[in-house]
């Protein structure tokens, strides 16, 4: 392991050297996007902290007021657990922004419980332990990294047993909670740049398409989310026009309602 680490470090130094001496060949200034339609890969859903990072650069955010650690209801339906798992991981990113160690630890345990409930507990036990240790040391960068690893491990474990749809629900839960927090912050301190962070029409279409392919999940909250996304779409798919304050508020109302639905029993 030590040898591997040494090798990795040496390789990293070599790569850094490459970056200094290597240049990219000239790329075309313009390409025809329509011609790419058959070769486009699925979108990678951004983690909430990617959005929170951009939000932080617009001004100080009082992250503490967005920390949520309430236990919520417990579910037995796998789609509901998957959605909740996504939102709880997103809550972890909020707690990291707030540098709230007790909340991070509590969320780490909750993630573990939910992962066990869905049958992928083994894959994240080491991450949950690492989250607690890093939170004790207030090593926020490591906590962030472990939360990312947690989500990745959970989704990989689900994909391995062909539970891709549950994996997509984890992403959806995280995206909804992230959007709820983003719109809450921007509603309180409105700025056009903050509102622009909501310009994610392709991501929304991605989730709509995925939800359409889950008719076997007879869970009311999924139907509710599907209907709500139809309402959100025109508010964020505005082309080059700015997203107004009223739209941000509406999206916040919708995502808050959905967020409550995800954590509450029907």
């Amino acid at each position, binding site marked *: 392991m030590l040898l591997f680490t040494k090798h990795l470090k040496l390789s990293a130094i070599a*790569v850094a050297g490459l970056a200094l001496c290597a240049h990219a060949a000239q790329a075309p200034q313009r390409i025809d996007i329509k011609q790419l339609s058959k*070769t486009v*890969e699925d979108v*990678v859903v951004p983690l909430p902290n990617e959005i929170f990072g951009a939000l932080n650069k617009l001004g100080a955010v009082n992250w503490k007021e967005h920390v949520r650690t309430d236990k919520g209801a417990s579910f037995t339906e796998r789609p509901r657990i998957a959605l909740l798992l996504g939102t709880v991981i997103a809550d972890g990113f909020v707690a990291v922004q707030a540098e709230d160690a007790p909340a991070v630890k509590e969320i780490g345990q909750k993630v573990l419980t939910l992962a066990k409930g869905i049958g992928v507990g083994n894959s994240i036990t080491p991450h949950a332990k690492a989250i607690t240790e890093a939170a004790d040391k207030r090593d926020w960068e490591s906590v962030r990294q472990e939360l990312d690893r947690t989500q990745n491990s959970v989704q990989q474990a689900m994909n391995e047993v062909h539970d891709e749809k549950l994996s997509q629900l984890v992403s959806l839960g995280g995206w909804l909670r992230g959007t709820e927090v983003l719109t809450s912050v921007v509603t309180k301190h409105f700025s056009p740049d903050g509102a622009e962070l909501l*310009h994610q029409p392709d991501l929304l279409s991605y989730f709509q398409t995925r939800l359409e392919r889950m008719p076997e999940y007879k869970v009311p909250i999924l139907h509710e989310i599907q209907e709500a996304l139809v309402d959100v779409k025109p508010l964020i798919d505005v082309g080059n026009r700015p997203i107004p304050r009223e739209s941000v508020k509406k999206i916040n109302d919708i995502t808050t309602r959905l967020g409550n639905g995800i954590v509450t029993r029907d």
Partner: protein
Amino acid sequence: MTPFVKILFGQVILLAMLGLFRLTAFASVDDAQTFALQAAEPYVKQGFQVREDYWGGDLGSGEKKAVRQQLFKGNEYWFWLGTEVERAKISVHIYDSDGKLAEDPDGWEKGHFAAAHVIPKTTGSYFIIVSVEDSPEERTHWALVYGFR
């Protein structure tokens, strides 16, 4: 050479050949990802958070793949492409949703690696175009990772 030494020598060669076969046969997107992460390593020290998630696949020489990615104004992104095929020539470039080149000019490509850098002017969808320009293999594994700060 005694018969015993001959047999032993033969077995060692056979094992070595099997080892080489294993390396070639089981080279995968995971190996390509290792190289992509290797390219990202120096940037972590500069504060970039590298995502655990990644894209991967295989392409023939001259083939391209587009990856759609949501980017946020205010963040800075690097995309790192890796392959395990030593003499392959690979590239990665970033375009906005209108198909206009959006990357900064400090991207680079060399051997197993290529990288592209963007500070998005607007929040929205971007296309990351990965390409195997040339390769001695029929199909070349690739993996793309990204980081932001």
